[in-house]
């Protein structure tokens, strides 16, 4: 993990309210599912950095020994939702921005990723597609991406996945693209197809809960990437705590709570007290 001042390479709207931003970061090593803390402006308001998942690695090279990609920079994909992301969306190429990361554990990259034994089913809600691009690229046909979204914005979110070998299925609330309904319905179908599989989820809390429940009820392990307001991103402010179950016990960790930034953001669903989220 490092704290750098990065140069913005590009920052462009890919669909109404969705931007991708490229940030220079020579030699960075990224595990799929990791995130960064980004300073959106040099103003004191908003004060805190904002967490964003790493979407792509620029000029990526898979480093097997490290289980991650090494590259010359990163690309983030973000939706404009509030004060911080509004300001971020106004920044232009050439500007510099404080960048901290890559942070967190990321999704487990199955050892069998190259031998098709276990299928990884990735379930994304909206911009929750972000942590799955690197994985989908890596796993190819051994993986499936199920994306739930409100409406047509989903097309912008899945566009980059189309050229990959990863299977993509879509559901929208209004039925405008893909199946009408919930992404968990797609999940049930996908699990029902059989074969050993593991489920990875990223998106709104309600969706993650449903993903964990569906997976458990069908006897499949699931991992979820959680979101919490964050101040530090490095496990020291203790602000991003969520209640862990006994399965979350790890040596040397503070008792009872786990930190989304330093213990996560990816947790095995059984490690989290869902009722306290």
């Amino acid at each position, binding site marked *: *993990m*490092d*704290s750098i001042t990065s140069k913005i390479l590009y920052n462009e709207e890919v669909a109404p309210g969705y931007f991708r931003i490229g940030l220079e970061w020579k030699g960075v090593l990224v595990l799929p599912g990791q995130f960064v803390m980004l*300073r959106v402006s040099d103003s*004191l*308001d*908003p*004060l*805190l*950095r904002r967490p964003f998942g790493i979407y792509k690695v620029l000029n990526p090279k898979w480093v097997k020994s490290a289980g991650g990609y090494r590259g010359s920079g990163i690309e983030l994909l973000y939706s404009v939702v509030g004060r911080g992301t509004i300001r971020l969306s106004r920044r232009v190429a050439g500007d510099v921005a*404080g960048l*901290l990361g890559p942070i967190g554990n990321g999704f487990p990259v199955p050892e069998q990723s190259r031998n098709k034994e276990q299928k990884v089913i990735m379930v994304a809600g909206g911009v929750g597609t972000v942590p799955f691009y690197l994985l989908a690229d890596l796993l190819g046909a051994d993986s499936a991406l199920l994306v739930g979204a409100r409406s047509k914005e989903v097309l912008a979110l899945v566009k980059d996945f189309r050229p990959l070998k990863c299977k993509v299925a879509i559901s929208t609330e209004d039925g405008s693209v893909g199946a009408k309904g919930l992404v968990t319905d797609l999940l049930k179908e996908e699990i029902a197809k059989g074969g050993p599989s593991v489920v990875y989820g990223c998106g709104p809390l309600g969706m993650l809960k449903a993903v964990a429940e569906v997976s458990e009820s069908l006897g499949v392990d699931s991992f979820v990437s959680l979101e*919490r*307001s*964050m*101040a*530090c991103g*490095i*496990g*020291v*402010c*203790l*602000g*991003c*705590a*969520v*209640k862990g179950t006994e399965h979350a016990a790890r040596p*040397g960790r*503070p*008792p*009872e*709570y786990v930190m989304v930034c330093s213990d996560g953001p990816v947790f095995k669903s059984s490690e989290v007290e869902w009722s*306290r989220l």
Partner: protein
Amino acid sequence: MKKNDNNKTGNNKAGKGVTKLPSMAVNVAGLKLSNPVMTASGTFGYGLEFAPYLDLSRLGGVVVKGLSPKPRPGNPGPRIVETPCGMLNAIGLQNVGVDAFIEEKLPKLRKVKTRVIANIFGESVADYVLVAKKLDGARGVHAVEINISCPNVKKGGMSFGVNPKEAARVVRAVRKATALPVITKLSPNVSDIAEMARAVEEAGSDVISLINTIPGMVIDIEKRMPVIARGIGGLSGPAIRPIAVRMVNEVYNAVSLPVIGIGGIMNASDAIEFMIAGASAVQVGTASFVDPQAAEKVVDGIADYLVRHKMSAKKLTGSLQK
């Protein structure tokens, strides 16, 4: 360290006069710092977490997360929320407990050439004493900072920090329990900060640090609930700096103890403001979240200022003209 040892900060040997490189060293009532910049409790973990980002040995000192007799799990989340130029936190004093600190953290911290200040708290005077005693024998701890902004469970949960008598009781007991320099950290949530300062001076504190956070609330207007699960959190960050600078100046004028300034320091000029107002040293808090290198940048910036003004750190303290 005797009570009457409490002269204002003096940078001992180096203080012969200003030479080309002004002296950054300060001696805060026996706590000798290579420069006046420390980190604030609860914002710097146990110090080691920051080793990847800055050179810990370049800091004057590191104040670790508040320690209690037993490990504490802390509050349910959400625990933090951003506010205009600040943030609220209600961490609930989560910590590994004094024993784990001494066994697991301290041995590693000893290897880093910096001063370690242990911040302590409790729910009763006995709690504070217990923690202070354990730390007294622990090699590598250079001072104890008493966080009195804690609920006094025996007195219906009212904070030690808003009642001069209760605060004095804690300080007196800790003063007896340890040979280390004792810093008392004041709560800003009082009508008269000078009165609190005099009470803890009287009770034998060697140093006063201030301010701790100011209680605040943010409401989610869609859910009509406080954003922070516990309702109220402590406000920190640049928003509170003018209040903190004023209080540091009031305390500096009220007592003869050295003062450590805390509250919204984001950069060197903010730190210098506190020193001019009367602080012998400062602590960088929330800024370390915004930029993990903040504290080291503050050191550099103070050095630049001292060079430009041909002044020692010691001279800067209390140099306010009216």
